[in-house]
């Protein structure tokens, strides 16, 4: 549970930036080299690499080096944690409001 929570924290940290979200969207199309990605984003290379490192550290992308080219690949499984979490939240609150509805309906009928 603690590990899941830490992973989820990391995913949300990684997603909390427009550049990193754009990189994730871009990598959703195809694995891309760092150099090619960097050319598409209007910022200095060191700034861009910082974003890549954040994404990698939080498990949203993996990078592999072949010769002088480092390629970034999206980890869809890690990204799916967000969806799982949202689904779980939706379920918890749907069930909770089911119980609320049942509770207040019973009380209302009891008063009549």
């Amino acid at each position, binding site marked *: 549970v603690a590990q899941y929570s830490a992973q989820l924290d990391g995913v949300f940290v990684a997603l909390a930036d427009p550049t990193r979200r754009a990189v994730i969207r871009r990598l959703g199309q195809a694995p891309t080299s760092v150099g090619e990605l960097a050319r598409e984003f209007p910022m200095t290379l060191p700034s861009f690499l910082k974003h890549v490192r954040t994404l990698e550290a939080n498990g949203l992308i993996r990078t592999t080096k072949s010769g002088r080219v480092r390629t970034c690949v999206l980890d869809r499984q890690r990204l799916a944690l967000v969806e799982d979490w*949202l689904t779980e939240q939706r379920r918890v609150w749907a*069930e909770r*409001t089911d119980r609320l*509805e049942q509770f*207040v*309906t019973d*009380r*209302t009928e009891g008063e009549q």
Partner: protein
Amino acid sequence: VNPDLDLTLQRVIRAPRAVVWRAWTDPSQLEQWWVPAPAVARVDRLEAQPGGAFVTRISDDGVEFGPHMDAAFLVVDDRERLVFTNAVDSRWTGASGVRTAAARHAASRDELPRGARRLSAGEPALPTVVLTVS
């Protein structure tokens, strides 16, 4: 409501608003529906006022209670609207922060459909639950 950031849940509950309001703000009533049976909920603090604590505990056997939720109320409009967040816990004493957040939430009130209860996962930095009764 930002569809990119908010998780919205709408329920129309056919009951007098006073009954729904009491179900949320009376500890002995909240305990009866807050968690799924056979788990048992216990309300430690339910201070329905801006900045007030909202602390519940949960137990599998009704004997030993563990932590469940530690949150704070942001907006409490009698029988109309209840907003709480677990981005800050009950030890939070940021009174000015409450007023700011309350004002911000009040400003967005008109965006909510009448009769809707909005349950929002909020921005990652401010998981907030907004309840609107009409």
